[in-house]
């Protein structure tokens, strides 16, 4: 058990400084989770498979925010905008230009990377709440921009666009939902591995140096401006891919699906999963998908209040999110083994 892990159990703020290993899970756990993710759909109904797909691409969007906030320490409330751009790019390419879906996703990712990188330029001078406001402005503007008249021939305006669900390729005998699930899993897995490696690389260490102390980082020769905008770009790009996956899975895009509410949900997902702990992203996504349903089930009229109370309970019990649970579990297992 490393020093930083000890700190977490005391609920101290010093948890921000995590060793790089603490951003991921052990190999054994990862393999078990992966096997579960592969096996579960084989025994599930189509609706459950759809929900699992939803879990994966929302988890991917939370992961993207996690790279930005947990990695480089910048805070964004504008992720819904990049998510929306990604979804629209994918939908427009698939429906208006008949381009196969697996080509659309990289395009959406690259385009969002560009937008995020450019947006990061003016945002460079802002930090903390000021950055939150700037990104928030982007998120509020996005639904209006998607409704603009001159884009209507492509985007379908307020009506939105219907997207065709792809069939399983190579004549595989698989339902569309199941194929889409495995396709999403593949994309998410690839990006997850990329993210883990990114954060362990030179760039990742630069992100974390900026997060922990910007001035010290720049004094050590880290190009703060470059790495901050790079973190913005990477995060936006991954969010764009997540948005594209969502467009294919939901089979529909409309301007009002990409409001600030979505950005807030992604933020909550990150906090519940544990800021800076990548596997927590999926836990966070599960929280934002399933807890509102549970709250609705407990009380229809007061579902918002029930959701708030559950959220409060979660942050009281585990202020550091699912990561804290994981670390406690690890310690417990370690003690068990030693005895």
């Amino acid at each position, binding site marked *: 058990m490393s020093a930083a892990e000890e700190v977490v159990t005391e609920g101290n703020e010093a948890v921000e400084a995590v060793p790089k290993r603490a951003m991921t899970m052990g190999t054994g756990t990862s393999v078990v989770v992966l096997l579960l993710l592969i096996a579960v759909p084989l025994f599930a109904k189509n609706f459950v498979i759809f929900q699992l797909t939803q879990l994966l691409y929302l988890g991917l969007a939370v992961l993207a925010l996690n790279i930005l906030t947990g990695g480089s320490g910048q805070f964004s409330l504008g992720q819904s905008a990049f998510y929306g751009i990604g979804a629209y790019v994918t939908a427009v390419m698939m429906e208006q230009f008949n381009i196969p879906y697996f080509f659309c996703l990289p395009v959406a990712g690259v385009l969002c990377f560009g937008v995020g990188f450019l947006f990061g330029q003016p945002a460079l001078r*802002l930090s903390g709440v000021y950055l939150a406001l700037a990104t928030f402005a982007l998120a509020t503007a996005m639904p209006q921009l998607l409704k603009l008249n001159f884009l209507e021939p492509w985007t379908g305006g307020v009506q939105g666009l219907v997207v065709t669900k792809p069939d399983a390729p190579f004549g595989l005998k698989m339902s569309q939902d199941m194929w889409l699930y495995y396709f999403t899993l593949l994309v998410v897995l690839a990006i997850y591995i990329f993210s883990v490696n990114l954060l362990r690389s030179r760039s990742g260490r630069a992100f974390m140096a900026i997060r922990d102390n910007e001035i010290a980082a720049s004094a050590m020769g880290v190009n703060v401006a470059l790495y901050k905008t790079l973190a913005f770009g990477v995060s936006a790009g991954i969010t764009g891919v997540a948005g594209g996956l969502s467009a294919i899975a939901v089979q529909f895009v409309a301007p009002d699906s990409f409001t600030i509410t979505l950005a807030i949900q992604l933020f909550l997902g990150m906090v519940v999963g544990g800021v800076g702990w990548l596997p927590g992203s999926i836990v966070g996504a599960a929280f934002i998908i399933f807890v509102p349903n549970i709250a609705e089930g407990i009380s229809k009229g007061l579902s918002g209040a029930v959701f708030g109370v559950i959220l*409060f309970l979660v942050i009281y019990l585990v202020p550091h999110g699912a990561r804290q649970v994981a670390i406690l579990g690890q310690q417990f297992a370690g003690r068990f083994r030693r005895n």
Partner: protein
Amino acid sequence: MELFTNQVLAGIATGAIYACMALAVVMIYQAIDHLNFAQGEMAMFSTFISWQLMQWGVPYWGAFVITLVLSFIGGIAIERILFKPLAKAPVLTNVAGFIALFSIINSSAGLIWDFTIKQYPTPFGSSPFLGSQLVSTHQAGMIGVTVLLLLGLYFFFQYTRIGLAMRAAASVPESARLVGINTSWMIALGWGMASAIGAIAGMLIAPVVFLEPNMMGGVLIYGFAAAVLGGLTSPFGAVVGGFLVGIFENLAGTYIPGVGNELKLPIALALIISVLVVKPAGLFGRHIVKRV
């Protein structure tokens, strides 16, 4: 020219509301260094309480005062019960707490008073003010109350012991504690005052936007924008920011073609961000020099 003057006047009137909200935002920001996302909902709840009191036959000013007292106590209670345990949690966890509070208050208000739009009375009347078409006596009253509130806060922070203690607790908590200031209660006091100021804003704006659980959504965004524009460390800046945002929003809606009501908010926010890129601490904010 007349159109321009009228638009500016109307902008000042709505600006007064944003200024009130921005003041409340700055009050809490000073105390705890966080933006309270639930501020608008707290104000909305206070406004509903005053409405309920009036339904029960309490006269306007009676309801006004009772609501202020209840909001003040309510604000302190929220801090003591919900947020004090989170004082040591990471910043983002606190923000999640605000979102949870938002959700709880919004949903409860909807259940208690339902989502139908309600009329809310004005103490100033709604006839045109000094012959102007766009500014009513109510809007003039709003501006007056905001200015009074600002003066009151100025004297409170500048010339009273407790105001000084609150400022000390906010700027250098450790040293304040050493000279015997109870910083924990100063934070609670900041919450109480923010809640009361928010209640004033809510009661002033309710005749304009009507009363319903989601009434403060837009107003809070403008309030945030105003506070950030003016500088989060300066109550005076928050008020100036409020008026500026109000005026600009009206002028943009009138003069920039294709903006209209839908794009007003994004345009206003875009302007604020452009200002912030030039002056990152806001117009009147203190620039803090950082050390390694």
